[in-house]
């Protein structure tokens, strides 16, 4: 499994903004993403909240290449809580 650990501003516990989500994808995920296998995207423990807007920006390009029903074949999420992990996955698939 391809593990991608996000490095973000530690003073911010809530991620928000479509543009910011896209920027994080471009700078930290795009080049490392394995389109032939599972990618574990790790949100740091200090991130407690992720807004829908961030998730939409983060997944903008990914969802241009794969369908929502295929997400589980390519992406797993690790985060500070099960609640947050589920929220991120649910909103990628929404």
């Amino acid at each position: 499994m391809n593990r991608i650990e996000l490095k973000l501003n530690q003073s911010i516990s809530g991620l928000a903004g479509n543009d910011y989500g896209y920027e994080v994808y471009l700078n930290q995920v795009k080049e490392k993403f394995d389109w032939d296998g599972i990618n574990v995207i790790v949100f740091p423990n200090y991130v407690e909240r992720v807004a829908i807007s961030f998730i939409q920006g983060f997944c903008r390009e990914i969802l241009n290449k794969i369908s929502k029903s295929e997400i589980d074949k390519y992406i797993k999420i690790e985060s500070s809580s099960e609640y947050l992990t589920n929220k991120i996955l649910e909103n990628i698939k929404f």
Partner: protein
Amino acid sequence: MTLYETLSIIFMGLAFVSSVVSLIISIVSASKVRTINQRSKFYDDIFKERILIKLPNLYNEYVEKEINIPNLAVEREFEEFLANFRREIIALKFIDQKFYKKIDDYIISIEDTVVRISNHSNEFVELKQKLYNNITSMYKVINKYFR
């Protein structure tokens, strides 16, 4: 043809045209009534309780409590409310795509601001105002649609 016969034909023609116009008006009216009834049902089922009770109460509770103490429980309640709201309006996608998109965008924008507020940055006052403005704008769109 006598004048009487000519006038009779004209009046019969007018009566026919008038009945056709009446029929069209009644069909259009019935269609409008159906649309109003359908919208009224959507308002009652999806929006009424959420925008008249839950959203204003969550706004007050969240904004007031967040001034002093970070309250993850209230924030999650707010987030879950917005997530459910988003799921509930999905039927509108198939009825009125434009209205659906507007409300969906407002919900996402409100949730975005809720998450930003929880960062307790020095932008709190501006974000609180933005949250208020977002909610007010969404209410205007909803009220206009269901008026």
